[in-house]
């Protein structure tokens, strides 16, 4: 067995605590290999915990990911650094040295006991509203009561909160401190940095960001989430009314020579899921998906697409040319989609109270990936190849297996 206490056993660095990174960390730790898990954000679970529902099970995204995140937090061999990113890798004396940058927030959630004494102190002496108890922080621990959040603009740096805090968890001076450089010798590196949503302003013909009822897919997910601002009710962002129709446009900024030639691979199913849930919540609304190829190819995905069609989701094989705004009776405006009905060749303009743009997702960078020698470093999840949750966790385990094999060959035999 791998001896975790021996000074020679350097940890494996896992970059990113999304579903791929969490899986890789847990699989390595199960073999007795120490892991340092760094996460740029304060919360674990990456993009998956932001999803209201997962396809094809229609389960909420939070619980299954939470279980793994909690296991990572509790595991004695996994050390977690939040608010920390990898800057680069260097080789020193044949060892890999990871250069990390830690930017701890004003409130250290590992030390905070959520007692609210900082809030009282701030209200008495500071600028009102500087400290707020926010529920968003609940993803960070991964499930805690509302946590104090220090607004860096309002804060006068008077230090009253730091004086009142019984555990030394809050320090407004951290707001101004530059990121701390940390150098850490590691045995190997697993990149699981995930993806970000593309800037949809790159696709001007769809008027992104110009009308409150034109959403990006992840915005729409947050807007309609059961834990979101409307508690699962679907409403127009412009006037709060219930939409009569919702249109999903696929391949926005992806499979497009201008921006991203490849397919993001998760958006067809993502749109099907959002469309099904929209139809369930608003049975009277007309819901349409404009797709290029409806790529529902994973386990159970085709059945999911068939169910969507059966439930009345309109599947239109067309790539709309234009989204524009039409004035609405009684003021305001509503988005309209101009597209070719491929069956008849007719050009159609249809009004949609909500338009969701779905498509371009960009892999996050993997600092030091190319510079390091080929003998180390494995990538998994979306940053390696567009992947959904189910594929990302398999790739996370695979990356862990490759690293474990390399470590075993270095020690000459099994772990």
């Amino acid at each position, binding site marked *: 067995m791998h001896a975790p206490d021996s000074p020679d056993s350097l940890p494996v660095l896992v970059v990113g605590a999304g579903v791929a990174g969490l899986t890789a960390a847990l699989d390595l730790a199960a073999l007795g290999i120490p892991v340092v898990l760094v996460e740029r954000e304060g919360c674990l679970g990456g993009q998956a915990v932001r999803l209201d529902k997962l396809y094809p099970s229609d389960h909420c995204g939070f619980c299954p990911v939470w279980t793994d995140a909690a296991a990572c937090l509790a595991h004695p061999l996994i050390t977690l650094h939040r608010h920390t990113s990898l800057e680069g890798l260097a080789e020193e004396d044949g060892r890999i040295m990871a250069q990390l940058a830690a930017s701890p927030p004003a409130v250290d959630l590992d030390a905070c006991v959520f*007692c609210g004494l900082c809030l009282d102190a701030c209200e008495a002496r500071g600028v009102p509203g500087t400290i707020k108890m926010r529920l968003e922080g609940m993803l960070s621990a991964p499930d805690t009561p509302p946590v104090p959040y220090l607004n860096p603009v309002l804060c006068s740096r008077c230090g009253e909160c730091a004086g009142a805090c019984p555990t030394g968890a809050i320090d407004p001076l951290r707001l101004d401190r530059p990121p701390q450089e940390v150098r850490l010798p590691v045995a190997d590196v697993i990149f699981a940095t995930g993806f970000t949503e593309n800037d949809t302003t790159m696709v001007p013909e769809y008027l992104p960001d110009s009308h409150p009822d034109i959403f990006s897919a992840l915005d729409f997910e947050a807007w309609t989430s059961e834990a979101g601002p409307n508690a699962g009710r679907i409403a127009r962002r412009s006037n709060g009314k219930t939409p009569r129709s919702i249109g999903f446009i696929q391949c926005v900024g992806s499979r497009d020579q201008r921006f991203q030639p*490849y*397919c993001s691979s998760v958006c067809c199913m993502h749109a099907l899921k959002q469309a099904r849930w929209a139809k369930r919540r608003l049975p009277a609304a007309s819901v349409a998906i404009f797709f290029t190829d409806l790529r529902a190819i994973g*386990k159970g995905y*085709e059945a999911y697409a068939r169910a969507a069609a059966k439930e009345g989701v309109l599947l239109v094989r067309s790539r709309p040319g234009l989204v524009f705004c039409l004035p609405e009776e009684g003021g305001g405006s509503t988005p309209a989609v101009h597209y070719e009905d491929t069956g008849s060749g007719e050009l159609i303009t249809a009004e949609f109270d909500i338009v969701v743009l779905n498509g371009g997702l960009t892999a996050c960078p993997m600092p030091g990936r190319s510079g390091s020698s080929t003998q180390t470093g494995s990538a998994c999840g979306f940053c390696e190849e567009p992947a959904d949750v189910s594929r990302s966790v398999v790739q996370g385990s695979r990356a862990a297996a490759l690293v*474990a094999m390399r470590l*075993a060959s270095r020690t000459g035999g*099994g*772990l």
Partner: protein
Amino acid sequence: MSGTPLIFICTCYETLSRTIPRGVLRTGIVARRPNAHIEFVPSLCRREDIDLIAGLIKERKHASVLLAACSPFARGNVVLDGLARRNPAMQASLVDVREGCAWVHGGNPDAAAAKAVDLVCMGLAGLRCREHSSEFHFQPVRRVLVVGAGPAGLAAAGTLARLGIEVSLAERMSRPGGLLNQIGRLFPYNMPGREFLATFLSEASHPCVDLLPKTSVTRIEGDPGRFEAHLSLEGRDMTVTAGAVILACGAMPVLPQNRFHSGELSGVISQLELETRLNKLEREESAPAGIAGAVFIQCVDAREDARPYCSTICCPTALKNALRLKNLNRDISVTVLHRGIMTPGRDLEELYRQTMASGVRFVAFSPASPPEVHGDGFVSSVSLTDALSARRLEIAADLVVLSTPLKPRPETASLAGDLGLRLDEIGFACGTEPMQPLVAPTPGVYLCGAVRWPVSAQEAVDQGRAAAIKAAGFLAQGALDLNRLFLPGSRRGPASIRTEACSRCGRCVSGCPYGACRREKNGPVTVCGIRCRGCGLCVAVCPSGAVRIPEQDSASVRAMLREIAPRPTALREVHR
């Protein structure tokens, strides 16, 4: 050792006392428990606090401790877990008097205090009746049985061997490789299949790997950690004992029977047949003779009501072979008739672009009006309605290639019962979606490759490695990890059955979803500790009250309820 628990009440730096004063809480508890040992502390969750109370408990010789503090999701679990690590034998319990009392009932301090007293007394009652499950022995056999030596099984075996774990690799056929043996080139990089296979064959030829060709698995018995697999090696029976099982028995191609005049018109062939022909032509470096036009028809026998799924790999396979045809002879016109080209991701989409650039034509059709194949003895043309322009097309063809899906192998269903596997409506095996797609519901059983869902060769080996590390992790587990079924710090063991109370009716045996309760002939019912998930269904169905989950025993729950039941008025006051 004192039987009375020590009570620690965390005032959270006196913020709790603003709503529930110490004195009120102490008086309330002492009124109902005159002998209670109560300690107020300003904090419990710092490392030094946990050290301190662990020391106090040891010094005063208390067997159990009740913590009245914040929610387990705030810091409560940190304290419980810390205490459990410092003193594994100690019984500790946590009640939430901050979020659940002081905070939510902040406007009604009396009710908050009454509820806090109730919760503390309930905690004490629960602790008094709570039992500890006995440690169970888990020493898994450090050998894994891998069923199937296709790319997934080979990669799994090779990975396990390099982690120092013995492998029995059972293969139905006389040589390893599975379906990959028939594939000449792999998408998306056109890598020779033989070369790809060689890598994994050499990885799996390792002293730790026992390759058993011409071997089928007839039956698997035993429990996780010690499965007994009965194998049949060319009619000879043998047994392998393995701690874990990886199912990698793959899938099989559907043959296009009577579809599009296959078997009736010469020139209508399956994708696999084309693969074989291309392999031969490429080996001989000759061009395909007598072919001017080839038409590929996708989704044959797939994505229909009879077989309502997409087999994932047929589109990239067709693109790869269309390109190979074009590479052998530029002048052959190749048309792919499809219902959407399924090439997600970066590399496959690139393959699609390359194929289009090479001159391969793509025409979409609707399942409502499928293409028609014409000919007389020999195929001559294919006609269809282009779904994108609604125009009728007639395409001359002397070769029609039918892309058919993969379907589950019969072994999947026959082993599913023994391994406690769930199958989907098509017959592919299911893991634990979404976070553990390769992990079967039974501990120690894993899936990889096309047994779960059709996959490319590359994805099969990736899954093989992933399943291997899951199996290695399972074999490295200790009994302690398994005892902690869910919450950190709260040990929860498997169900236990009091033999003297058991009527042997067998309801728990049929009711257990994990196959943990079992009865040997007419003997008593026993629980397999490693299979038990502590779900409690057995407790619910037992008519004689003989089954218990020790840490969650109904006696302790009853005792807790009795603490509040005699005073229903008080209860109503709290919840008013």
